């Protein structure tokens, strides 16, 4: 088993429901207070003005206005006194809710990647795994007593295995989504251009320079007559002139394309080129060539950076070094990681320069 214990509260749905209800109650409370304060202020102003206009003998008390307005709002919203919001309960349920939210996002991410090849889904599911582990740790660190939410491993190396599996999954998602993301977009664009070129080749003028001469049977009532008048008006307006001008251009473009097609029958292929995806054989070959080289190389270097300093200090270090605080802290990895990364950046800079 990879994990020794996953807290049961991770899967307790009632926690989420209670949280959402609490949030709704809080929302209602704040909406009510907002309406009360703003509306009440307006109501007081109106009443005051009314009293001034009506003159002496008319008086309205603040309490009466307040009562009237509260009764008015209560027709749509419950009175805040009836809405009990428990802050403590809210703080207690919020972390569980966030964890469950991470689980849902992770599952949705996996589904999104599996069905539509979404790389964002893969990244979200990757992230959700680590947030599930990270979040309780942060809560404990900042003093929120959520020990019972901490995930525990059956073996410390299982954590490393989880890291490797999740990373390999992420990299595989990047490689496999390549065809979908890049070639699919290119294919869509190619199809769009092909459609446009075909439409242009088949172009027929829609707006004629002269409106169609029709003799309507019922002069004022036929649709034809209305269309005829509309065309007359459009021809005279700027929009109409632009449309006629545009139609002329498209007509000539169509004639030009037909002429091009006569001279070179392959012109449609050049205008809407289809990018062919790499051969499946070549892609698989590339995958099997790259992955066995790349993943072990990365894992080896990572393992060396994370574990070697400690191993070296333990094996060959002097007592003051092996018993020092610095030998125990994980920051030791920085001593190897930073120079290696800098070295690789330097190599890439040289390679870039060379090009």
């Amino acid at each position, binding site marked *: 088993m990879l994990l020794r214990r996953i807290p049961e509260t991770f899967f307790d749905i009632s926690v989420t429901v209670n949280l959402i209800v609490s949030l709704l109650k809080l929302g209602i409370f704040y909406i009510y207070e907002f309406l009360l304060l703003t509306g009440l202020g307006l109501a007081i102003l109106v009443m005051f003005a009314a009293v001034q206009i009506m003159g002496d003998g008319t008086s309205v008390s603040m309490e009466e206005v307040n009562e009237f307005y509260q009764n008015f709002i209560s027709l749509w919203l419950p009175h805040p006194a009836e809405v009990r919001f428990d802050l403590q309960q809210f703080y207690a349920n919020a972390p569980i809710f966030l964890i469950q939210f991470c689980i849902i996002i992770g599952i949705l991410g996996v589904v999104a990647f599996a069905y539509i090849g979404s*790389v964002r889904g893969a*990244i979200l599911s990757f*992230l959700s795994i*680590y947030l599930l*582990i*990270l979040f309780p740790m*942060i809560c404990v*660190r900042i003093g929120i007593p959520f020990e019972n939410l901490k995930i525990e491993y059956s073996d410390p190396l299982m*954590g*490393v295995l989880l*890291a*490797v599996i*999740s*990373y390999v999954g992420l*990299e595989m998602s*990047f*490689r496999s989504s*390549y065809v979908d*993301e*890049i*070639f699919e*977009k*290119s294919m869509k664009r190619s199809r769009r*251009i092909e459609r*446009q*070129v075909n439409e*242009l080749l088949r172009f027929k003028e829609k707006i004629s320079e002269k409106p169609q001469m029709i003799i309507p049977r019922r002069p004022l009532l036929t649709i034809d007559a209305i269309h005829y008048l509309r065309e007359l008006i459009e021809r005279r307006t*700027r929009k109409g002139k632009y449309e006629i001008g545009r139609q002329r*251009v498209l007509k*000539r*473009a169509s004639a*030009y394309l037909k002429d*091009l097609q006569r001279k070179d029958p392959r*012109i449609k292929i*050049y*205008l*809407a*080129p289809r*990018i*062919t995806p*790499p051969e499946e054989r070549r892609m698989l070959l590339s995958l099997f060539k790259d992955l066995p080289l790349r993943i072990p190389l*990365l*894992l080896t*270097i*990572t393992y060396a*950076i*994370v574990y070697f300093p400690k191993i070296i200090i333990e094996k060959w270090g002097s007592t003051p070094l092996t018993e020092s605080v610095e030998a125990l802290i*994980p920051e030791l*990895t*920085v001593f190897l*990681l930073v120079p*290696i*990364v800098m070295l*690789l*950046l330097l190599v*890439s800079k040289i*390679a*870039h320069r*060379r*090009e």
Partner: protein
Amino acid sequence: MMAPRGRAITVLGIFLFIMGLSLSELLFVFIGTLLILSIAVTMPLFYYTVSFADIIVMRILDKDKVFAGDFVNIKVTIENRSRYAYDLVEIRDNIPEVFEVIAGDNVAVANLPPGASFTYSYVLYPKMRGTYAIGPIRLVIKDRLGFFWAEREIPSITTITVYPSYEEIKRLDILSRARFIGMEYGVHSTKQKGIGMEFLMIREYEVGDEFRKIDWKATARTGKLMVKEFESERNVEIMIFLDSSKSMAVGPPEENKLEYSIRAIVTLVKMALERKDNVGLCVFSDRVHEFIKPKSSEKQFYDILDVLAKVSAGGRSNLANAIEYAISRLKRRTLFLIFTDLEAPSSFILEGIKLAVARGHSVVVISPFGPWFEVSAEELSPVERALAEALLIEMWEKRRAVAREIEKYGVAVVNVGPDDCIPAVISEYLKMKMRGLAQV
């Protein structure tokens, strides 16, 4: 350069690494280190395999000189001569802003195995005359994981010259019969024998016309005294002066005085060359920019088109300078057709006119009136319209004053707007030809 996905992975890696350090949790340190290294290891491998020097790009245009409103097909071929495969290469061919892509796309995405080539094409619609550069070509290569991309601009530039629009010339070809030209430009043809010149039109009698030219039939028909006009069979020599000062380009880029003048000149040159007249061109502002001596060869039309394509507005107008320049190079009497908006200091204009007339040249001034080109009444509010009308009257008065001074030298000033620019120019040319001025 790092792509957004690469940046996201780097930030995620650093975040998890720091979390691991602060919580003393080995898992996060491990996964953070793994993510950071995945980026760091990929970078040099990517840059090592990218080699733009081995990518050859070629562009072919079906014509490098085209009329505005025409179309040009551009074919771009890209070839991978390296030993590496590029799974995703984005090619973007830069086009001038005034051009419109009417078919295809100037951006393409290609998959280039070693030794492979990829060709794509697009059709451009140039809207405005001028000399433009197509290119450079921008190449973007991305890696398979989407972490990095490399970009390079290939300095492949093709110059294309766009001549002024030939719509009017096309109409002219359709209307090439004298009868149709008459109908289009307000002249009417007739047939009469015995005079020895080509008959061209019947018009109303003006003081000074010969009595023998009165057409009695037309007079009886119309009730007004009508005379016959004849076109001279002899060719004339025409020198066109185009004012390319800054004031000529005020207004919308495709609809200002300069553009209309150029279109009118193109139509005029075409018509005159078909009639075997000698036509030359002088483009000037504060100095003479281009000068083409009058000739009647077919090549002359394209030489003039080349010059007109490159005309750009700038500087102030100095007509006197231009006329002096032209006079020193012209051997015979010439018809000067001057396209200017008369917004320069009147002394420069009058000095030039005086000089031309003194040397025996015939002069006609075609003057586009600014407000008619610069703004459309439909765009103005009622208040703006009232102000515009007041300004228009003031400008018109100033123009009239200058025109009166010019007319004292026997020079006609023809005020034109967008709709009547070309017809007015053609009409003046035909009139001058009929009168037999500046014959070769």
